[in-house]
C-alpha cells in the first residue's frame, strides 16, 4: 500500500512538474471570471499588459457562463479555489466573507492608497472595517428616454437638469393619451422593478433611509415607507401592462419601437437599445427626477469586484494583479473597452460616449451617496421578498396593505428586533 501511495504521489508530482514546465517556470495566478464576450476580450487585453510588465507572472483566466458562475463559485471556493474570483460588492459578498472564503486585502488597499483613489467604493468593499474586494467597474442607473416618443406625443424634451416629479407625472398623462407607455419595464426576472423602487425610495426619503430599509432597520408600515409606495402608486398606472410576463429585453423592444417613452435601467441596456436601432440622436439619458425637495441626490451604481480567495496558492502575485486592477490606467482601459465607468477617480472616461459622460457626471455629483442596487444592498432572502412585493404592487396596487404586512413579517423574522 505504501508503495502504491508513493507511486501515485510520484505520478502527481510528475504531472505537476510537466504543467509548470509548460508554463516556462512562470509563477501562475489563477482567476475565475464570468465575462460576456466584450468584457472577456477587455480582460484578456489587461492580462496581456500586466504580463508584459511582469514577465515572471502568468495569469490564467478561466471564464464561466454568467448564470452558471453563481452556482459554480460556491463549489470552487471550497473544493478547488483559484487565486482570484469575480463577484459583487456589498451584501452579495458577505456570505463568502463570513464563511472565510474571501481573504482580507486591506493591505493591498493601504499599500496602494486605494482608500483615496477608490473613495466612492470604500463602503461597498468593506465588511467589519476590512476590505475584501477590488472594485474595478460600475455603471449608472437612471432614466433612458426615447426622443421619438416625445415627439409623437408632443411632449417637451427634458432639459439637461431633467424634469421635476410633477412634470414627469404630467408628461406621463400626455403619453398615456397618445397610447404610449410612459415607463416600461419587464419584470419577469423581478430585479428591474427594484431599480424603480430604489429610485423612488432614494428620492422620497434619501440615501440613509434607503440604506436602513435595505438593512432591515426600518418598518415597512412606517410613514416614510408608505410615502415611497404612495409615489410608486402615482407611477403605477403609467407602467407597461403585463410587464410581469416579459423580460427586460422584451421591454427594451417596446421602448425601441417608440411604444414607450422611458425606461428606468442600467447603462448596460444602451447596447441593447442601439442594437434595436436607436442612436445617440433619439436615445436620451436623465437622472431620476427629484421628489422630496432638498433630499440630497443619491444614485444607483452597482459595482463589480474581484476578490482574493482564502485558498489562494499564490496570494502574493495575485495581490500584485489586484493592485494593477485598481489602478487608474488599467481601469481606464478596461472600462473604455466595455463601456462602463471606472471606480478609480483618477481614471478617464471616453468623451465621445454621451451616456458614459452623463453617467460619470451624475455619479460624481451625487452628494447623497451611491447605492449598489436592491439585491446587493439587502440580504439575499430579504431582497427577494422585497422584489416580489414591488412587482405585486405594480400589478395589484390595491393589495398594498397585504404587501406591506407580508414584507414587515419577513423583516421581523429575518431581523429579530
Amino acid at each position, binding site marked *: 500500500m505504501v508503495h502504491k501511495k508513493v507511486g501515485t504521489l510520484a505520478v502527481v508530482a510528475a504531472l505537476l512538474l510537466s504543467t509548470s514546465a509548460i508554463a516556462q517556470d512562470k509563477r501562475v495566478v489563477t482567476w475565475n471570471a464570468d465575462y460576456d464576450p466584450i468584457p472577456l476580450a477587455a480582460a484578456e487585453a489587461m492580462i496581456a499588459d500586466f504580463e508584459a510588465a511582469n514577465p515572471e507572472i502568468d495569469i490564467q483566466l478561466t471564464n464561466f457562463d454568467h448564470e452558471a458562475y453563481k452556482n459554480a463559485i*460556491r463549489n470552487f471556493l*471550497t473544493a478547488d479555489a483559484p487565486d482570484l474570483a469575480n463577484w459583487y460588492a456589498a451584501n452579495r459578498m458577505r456570505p463568502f466573507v463570513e464563511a472565510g472564503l474571501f481573504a482580507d486585502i486591506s493591505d493591498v488597499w493601504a499599500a496602494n492608497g486605494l482608500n483615496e483613489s477608490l473613495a466612492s467604493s470604500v463602503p461597498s468593499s468593506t465588511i467589519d472595517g476590512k476590505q475584501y474586494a477590488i472594485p474595478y467597474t460600475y455603471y449608472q442607473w437612471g432614466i433612458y428616454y426615447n426622443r421619438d416618443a416625445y415627439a409623437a406625443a408632443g411632449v417637451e424634451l427634458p432639459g439637461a437638469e431633467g424634469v421635476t416629479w410633477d412634470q414627469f407625472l404630467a408628461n406621463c398623462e400626455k403619453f398615456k393619451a397618445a397610447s404610449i407607455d410612459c415607463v416600461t419595464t419587464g419584470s419577469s426576472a423581478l430585479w428591474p422593478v427594484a431599480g424603480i423602487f430604489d429610485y423612488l425610495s432614494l428620492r422620497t426619503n434619501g440615501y440613509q433611509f434607503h440604506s436602513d430599509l435595505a438593512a432591515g432597520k426600518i418598518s415597512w408600515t412606517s410613514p416614510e415607507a408608505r410615502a415611497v409606495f404612495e409615489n410608486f402608486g402615482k407611477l403605477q398606472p403609467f407602467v407597461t401592462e403585463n410587464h*410581469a*410576463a416579459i423580460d427586460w429585453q422584451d421591454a427594451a423592444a417596446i421602448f425601441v419601437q417608440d411604444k414607450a417613452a422611458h425606461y428606468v435601467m442600467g447603462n448596460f441596456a444602451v447596447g441593447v437599445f442601439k442594437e434595436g436601432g436607436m442612436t445617440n440622436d433619439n436615445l436620451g439619458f436623465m437622472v431620476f427626477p427629484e421628489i422630496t425637495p432638498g433630499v440630497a441626490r443619491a444614485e444607483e451604481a452597482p459595482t463589480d469586484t474581484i476578490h482574493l480567495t482564502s485558498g489562494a496558492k499564490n496570494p502574493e502575485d495575485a495581490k500584485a494583479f489586484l493592485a494593477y486592477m485598481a489602478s487608474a490606467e488599467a481601469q481606464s482601459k478596461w472600462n473604455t473597452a466595455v463601456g462602463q465607468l471606472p471606480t478609480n477617480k483618477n481614471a478617464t472616461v471616453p468623451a465621445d460616449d454621451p451616456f458614459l459622460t452623463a453617467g460619470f457626471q451624475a455619479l460624481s455629483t451625487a452628494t447623497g451617496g451611491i447605492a449598489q442596487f436592491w439585491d446587493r444592498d439587502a440580504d439575499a432572502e430579504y431582497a427577494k421578498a422585497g422584489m416580489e412585493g414591488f412587482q405585486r404592487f405594480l400589478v395589484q396596487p390595491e393589495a398594498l396593505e397585504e404587501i406591506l404586512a407580508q414584507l414587515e413579517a419577513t423583516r421581523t423574522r429575518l431581523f429579530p428586533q
Partner: protein
Amino acid sequence: MAQATGISAAPSARRWNQRTLAPWLFMAPGLFMFTVYVLWPIIQSVTLSFYDWNGLYNQNGEFTGTFVGIRNYAELMTDPAFETSLWNNFYWLALYLLALPAGLFIAIFLNQTVTGIRLYKSLFFFPFVISQVVVGLIFAWFYAPNFGLFYLLTEAITGKGTAILADPDLVTFGIIAAGLWPQIAYVMILYLTGLNNVAPDQIEAARLDGAKGWRMLWYVVLPQLRPATFIAVIVTVIGALRSFDLVSIMTNGGPFGSSRVLSYYMFEMALGEFGFRMGYGAAIAVVLFAIMMIFISGFIWKMWRDETER
C-alpha cells in the same frame, strides 16, 4: 455462487444457502443502487431539514450549518409562499387528471382502421416526444403579451388581450394547460396499447347482447382497460407532483410567486439565486416526499393486493 460455496458443505447448509443467501446476492446490486441513490439522499434530506445552512463549507471543508430543530417546519406553517405552492400543487393534481378522460377519448377515436391512421397516431403522440422545455417555450410564446397567438385571439374577441402569464390568478392554469398537452398524448398511447388487448370475443358477445355506445364502453371496454388506467393514474399523479420544468421555463414561479409549486419552491429556496437556504429547501422536499408517499403507498398497496389475490 451458492453452488460453488456449498459443494463441500452438508446438504442442509447448502439448502440454507440457496434459499436464504441467493436472493440477497441477486438483489445486492439493486439494493446497493437503491441505498446509495434513494435511501441515503432521503436520510440526508431529512437530516438537513433540521439545520440552517447556506450551502457553504468553510476553507477547511467543515460544515457551517447550525442545528435548529423543527424551526424550518414551523416557518413553513406560516409561510404564505408555501401555502401558495401547496394550493398550486393541488390544482396541478386535480386538473392533470383530466388527461385521463381526454387521453381515453382520443385513443378510442384513433383506434380504427383508416388509411394513414399510423400517421395520425404519431401526430397525436408528437407532443410527448418533444422535450418539456420546448413545450414550455412554445406555450410561453403562445401566451406572450402583444404578439402571442392566445393574446391576439382574446384581443380580437374581447377587445382586450389577456396575458395569462402576467395574471396571478390565471398563471397556474395556463401552465397546467401546457403540461396537459404532452400528458394527454402519453395517456393516449397507454390506452391505445390497452385497446389492442381488448378481447374481441367479449366485444362480439356484448354486441350480440345489444350493448353499444356508453354502456359498451363502461361495462365491457373500460374494465378490460383497468391495467392501462392504473398506470395512467400513476404517471399522471406523479407527473403532476413533480411538475417543475414548465414552471421554471414559463414563469420562474412568477408573477410574485403565484405559479410556484412545491418542487420549484424547494429549488428556489435551496439553489436559486436568492436562496441557498439548504435546510429550508430540504424541509420543503420532505413535505413533498410525504405527499408523494401517500400516493405511492396507495399504489404499492394496490399492486400488492392484486398480486396476493391472484
